[in-house]
């Protein structure tokens, strides 16, 4: 009998279906790899098992008994331990305080036993002593640790609760090979003790190295579940990709020119390790790969929103030093984020103010000339088919798609020569997407160079002229012509990441 069994799990966030009846079963003393592309529902499934998200439908059985956890505390009490991808560490607190948060050793008086806390943490750290690097001791603050060290501390924190079901959601993402070996060593010991482990990773070689069984998810459904010995790398990739149909190529008017619009050499920043490429006028250059491999970081670095460590950028043959969005804007570069709420709209302000903010901050005038600004933005509102009651209505009244059009129109009004699109169609409806695609096509025919990052692989492959595939902060492949298909994209995206930067 499986120790944990989830069946028919459904979950919807707003209008987006995250899980459409997923099934999953976990045996004691086994490592079960759970894989799938961005947004396939695996993280949501884990959060439901861990009690931090409630399912809309479906049952979870623990040791054969139906359970439903209303918060992480209940799941933890039932012996479920979770390594959270975004980490659950309190950065200003120490390593020892973090590992034993909520289960600190106490003296007979009920007060904390700080000596015991320190020595227990010392013992826990011993497991990773040879790979964790310098500066990690029980009294070190987590804020002073590097990303890989923090991940190892999060692992120790999960294990400190002695869980019998362990969910590791990309627990090895920031680790180097030696650190992964040390973690696997520990996982094998846990397995021998009868623990059940759900192992989520994007590294295919790790799946074959550690897993006993593999389950592949796609579009909120489990599409493959096999003992590791009865499947293959190709079968798994095929299951992730689904129907190996070439993505629909859109009709397009634009033809990329030969002139280089943007040239980037050896660009390094947080999450970027020496990225070089050229983008041409009138070209849509796609940036693909798994989530968070440097695509978004590149766009924000180019726009001056992320500090550079090294590298050079040339726009139209002239050097660009991105000191901040203000300086970059003046070189006719525009950036549109898909994260509208955080980086895009000022929701409670009128549409008009949202539209002209880019013009205002570029032209440094003291007095706002309302009529002229309206004249300048009007054509873009019309081109994007923005639907609104009045320019004085607040942006919050618009649908997500129309909000995104406002943000795009804001930037188009500055007549950019390079347009940076950071997942611009996230969470918007199909009709709006079509409007955006045709606008992009039109802009390219006019010689604009577009850098497009999209988490929707279909869209990325369908509208880009070329696709650069990112993995671990580097460009690992360039897909052109017929190579622009899912198979090639996944092969490059799921390959072992080059040594962590």
């Amino acid at each position, binding site marked *: 009998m499986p120790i944990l069994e989830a069946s028919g799990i459904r979950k919807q966030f707003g209008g987006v279906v995250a899980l459409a009846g997923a099934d999953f079963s976990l045996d004691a003393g086994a490592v079960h790899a759970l894989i799938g592309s961005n947004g396939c529902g695996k993280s949501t499934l884990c959060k439901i098992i861990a009690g*931090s998200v409630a399912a809309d439908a479906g049952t979870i059985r623990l040791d054969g008994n139906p359970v439903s956890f209303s*918060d*992480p*505390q209940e799941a*933890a*009490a039932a012996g479920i331990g*979770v390594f*959270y991808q975004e*980490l*659950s*560490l*309190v*950065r*200003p*607190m120490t390593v020892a*305080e973090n590992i034993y*948060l*909520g289960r*600190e050793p*106490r003296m007979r008086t*009920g*007060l*904390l036993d*700080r000596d015991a806390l320190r020595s227990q943490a010392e013992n826990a750290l011993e497991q990773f002593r040879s790979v964790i690097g310098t500066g990690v001791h029980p009294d070190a*603050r987590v804020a*002073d640790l590097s990303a890989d060290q923090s991940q190892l501390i999060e692992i120790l*924190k999960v294990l400190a609760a002695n869980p019998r079901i362990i969910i590791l959601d990309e627990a090895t993402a920031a680790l180097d090979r030696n650190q992964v070996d040390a973690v696997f060593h520990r996982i094998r010991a846990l397995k021998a003790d009868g623990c059940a482990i759900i192992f989520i990773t994007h590294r295919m070689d790790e799946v074959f190295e550690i897993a006993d069984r593999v389950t592949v998810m796609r579009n909120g459904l489990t599409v493959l579940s096999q003992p590791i010995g009865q499947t293959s790398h190709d079968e798994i990739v095929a299951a992730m990709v689904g129907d190996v149909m070439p993505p629909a190529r859109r009709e397009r008017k634009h033809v990329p020119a030969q002139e280089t619009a943007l040239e980037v050499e050896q660009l390094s920043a947080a999450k970027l390790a020496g990225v070089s490429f050229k983008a041409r006028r009138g070209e849509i250059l796609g940036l693909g790969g798994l989530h968070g491999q440097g695509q978004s970081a590149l766009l924000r670095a180019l726009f001056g929103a992320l500090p550079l460590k090294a590298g050079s950028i040339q726009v139209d043959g002239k050097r660009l030093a991105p000191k901040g969005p203000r300086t970059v804007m003046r070189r006719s570069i525009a950036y549109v984020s898909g994260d509208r709420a955080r980086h895009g709209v000022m929701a409670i302000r009128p549409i008009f103010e949202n539209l002209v903010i880019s013009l205002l901050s570029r032209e440094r005038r003291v007095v706002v000339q309302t009529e002229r600004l309206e004249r300048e933005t009007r054509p873009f509102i019309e081109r994007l088919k923005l639907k609104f009651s009045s320019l004085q209505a607040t942006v919050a009244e618009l649908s997500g798609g129309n909000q995104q059009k406002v943000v795009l129109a804001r930037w188009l009004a500055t007549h950019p020569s390079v347009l940076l699109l950071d997942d611009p169609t996230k969470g918007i409806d199909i009709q709006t997407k079509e409007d955006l695609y045709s606008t992009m096509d039109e802009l390219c025919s006019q010689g604009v160079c577009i850098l497009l990052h999209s988490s929707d692989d279909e869209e990325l492959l369908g509208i880009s002229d070329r696709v650069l595939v990112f993995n671990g902060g580097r460009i690992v492949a360039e897909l052109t012509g017929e190579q622009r298909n899912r198979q090639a994209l996944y092969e490059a995206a799921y390959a072992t990441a080059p040594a962590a930067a």
Partner: protein
Amino acid sequence: MKSTLRLSGHRHPYLMAAVVFLVLCVVNAILQPSFLKFGVATSNVAAFLPMALVAIGQTYVVLASDIDLSAGAIVSVVNVVVVSIIEGMGGTGASIAAGLTLGIAVGLICGAVNGLCVAYLRFQPIVTTFATGIVFAGFALWVLPEAGRQVPPEFYLAYAGTVLGVPTVLWILLAAIAFAGVIARTRFYQALRATGGNIQAAYQTGVPVARVRLRAYLLSGLFAALAGLALVGETASGDPLIGGALTLASVTAVVLGGTALSGCIGGVAGSILGAFILGLINNVIFFAQLPFAWQGLIQGLIILAALAGGVVMARGRQET
């Protein structure tokens, strides 16, 4: 030197407050030669005690990354309720006991109201406690519309007197420090700091974040009540406006003491020092015989300077 300072800044966020405190003590001793005499020191402690108590309670709320802008109003409510009960019951020993007990109960109830609104109903802490503060202050005015009433001499003589040769006010301060020392060694305190440092992480780790925040507000209510009682002992009467200035003074003391308004970092020791710093600044200005017009200016500048020192050290902390 610089690196040791930074290191200390990280381990002991209240170090800057200690330095400023000592400097102010020296300046005060120069301006007022009797400063170091036991009697004068005791009267200073008595004068600073209410603010120190409110600051202790405020520290717990701030560590959870919340704030209590009603603390001063709770002081007023407790002050007038206690005086009214004691007078109303005839000023007997039993009435004093009832007044003390009910005073503390009122403080806890006020704290519970704040905590329930902020932690369970998820109201915004600044606005919520600002609003409940107005309600509490209004209640205090309703109980006692203007300063007055009397407590029996036993009360204020005991407060001004000594127990086992040690002044009562010192006992109260020591008891408060001991209490804070115990709290700092509980699981609750770790949960409190974790909640202030990263509430999402704390929740995912199974920390009962709502209960933790509620308890912080209860502690703030408790210490505000103690401050209200201390003021009864100090003034021997009730005043519905007595606590008003203590709210922002307590927040200032907490920040001067090195506790981060963003939560997690800091502690009670710094806040007590911060409260004493604020008190000493007033002393120094008084004994320096500055013209009245200069007092506010100098007071503000000294507070800014002390804060600047803390900021410089916090920068060092982040760079290491």
